[in-house]
């Protein structure tokens, strides 16, 4: 019984299948809202309202011919997409969807999440580097530069949450918020803003879509990927989008917890989880819609000049607030 239920949890809900489907849904929401902001319709004819569009894209790419450039470092080039997906799927298991804790939960899983984000960037670098052609190389270089900019603010803003609730465990942060109010209504409001900006960079979205800036370096580090590998990369990036929005919801908006009668928690909590993550996604998409891309040096300068001091300030504020 236990084995069955944990297998179900791992693979179906709230495990791999759930997250993969969620990632498709998120891509759809993202594209639709982005289009609506531009007075367009966006995907429309694939399934009802174009809901199946991301799935069609995925299947099409899976079925396409898979090319590997001649001069690439084949081992790395071929394994990176798979690693990206695996990494994202694993780290997503710590997200609490139906209760205080996720499928796996341990002390220090917040650190694990941060490590996974950094690792993802390193995988991006490897992907670009192993392609051995100019655009991906430049994209990879930019990805690492970008990492220098937003990594520290990201960590510090998460640290703010950890300090506030006095724990480095996701479930503890969630339950602390359930009893003390959401993190966003406290000194973490600043942290939340910093977090949103930083994940926009981590996700490589406008205004920080520098490593795959189409107008400058074609598709950046992804330029040489095609077919199945591109499908996996796209999926990994969508999963990352889900993960980041969900992490923001978990850390700042109280995770899946909310008002619900005891007997309905099993349904209400996932619904709350969805609502909150989608809310974050909407904010992310609006940001994507209203900015132009900044240049890499401008991004790094911005991060060091404003984001990092602000995030230190935020940590200090939290500490003071804790002590009082």
């Amino acid at each position: 019984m236990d084995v069955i239920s944990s297998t179900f949890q791992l693979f179906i809900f709230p495990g791999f299948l759930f997250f993969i489907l969620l990632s498709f849904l998120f891509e759809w929401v993202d594209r639709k809202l982005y289009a609506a902001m531009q007075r367009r319709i966006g995907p429309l004819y694939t399934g009802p309202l174009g809901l199946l569009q991301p799935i069609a894209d995925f299947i099409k790419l899976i079925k396409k011919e898979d090319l590997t450039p001649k001069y690439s470092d084949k081992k790395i080039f071929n394994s990176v997409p798979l690693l990206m997906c695996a990494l994202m799927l694993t780290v997503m298991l710590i997200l609490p969807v139906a209760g205080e804790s996720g499928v796996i939960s341990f002390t220090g899983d917040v650190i694990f999440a941060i490590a996974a984000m950094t690792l993802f960037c390193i995988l991006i670098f490897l992907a670009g580097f192993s392609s051995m052609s100019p655009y991906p190389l430049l994209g990879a270089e930019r990805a690492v530069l970008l990492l220098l900019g937003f990594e520290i603010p990201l960590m510090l803003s998460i640290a703010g949450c950890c300090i506030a609730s006095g724990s480095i465990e996701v479930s503890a942060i969630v339950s602390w918020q359930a009893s003390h109010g959401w993190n966003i209504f406290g000194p973490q409001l600043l942290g939340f803003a910093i977090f949103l900006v930083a994940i926009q960079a981590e996700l490589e979205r406008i205004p920080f879509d520098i490593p795959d800036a189409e107008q400058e370096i074609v598709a950046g580090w992804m330029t040489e990927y095609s077919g199945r590998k591109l499908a996996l990369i796209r999926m990994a990036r969508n999963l990352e989008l889900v993960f980041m929005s969900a992490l923001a919801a978990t850390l700042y908006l109280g995770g899946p917890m909310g008002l619900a009668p005891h007997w309905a928690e099993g349904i209400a909590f996932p619904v709350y989880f969805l609502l909150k993550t989608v809310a974050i996604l909407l904010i992310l998409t609006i940001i994507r819609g209203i900015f132009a891309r900044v240049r890499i040096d401008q991004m790094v300068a911005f991060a060091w000049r404003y984001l990092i001091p602000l995030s230190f300030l935020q940590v200090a504020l939290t500490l003071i607030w804790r002590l009082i």
Partner: protein
Amino acid sequence: MSIFLEACRSLLKPKATLRYPLGGKDLLQIPDGYRGKMALKREACIGCTICEKDCPSSAITIITDQKGKRPVFYLDRCMFCGQCKESCPTKAISFTKDFENASYDRKTMEVR
């Protein structure tokens, strides 16, 4: 900031997209003078071959049918410039609003 407000306004405004082709061709307001696929009034044509001589991209060939000489238009070369209509002394050539001329085969792209 102004672009943010504009984006919010755009979310409320109706979409600017015309749902062509599934919404049908009537959605599009093609003006009367539009130069789409051409049409030939066979009775009016006197077979003078001026249109063939003036066509800048040799998209017209003169053939002979039971009534005599007449032009055939090849849409794969035609650039819808309207010179044939200008040149025709009897106004036998006119342009319709039909723009849906995409085809799988170059050989079928002609107006007889």
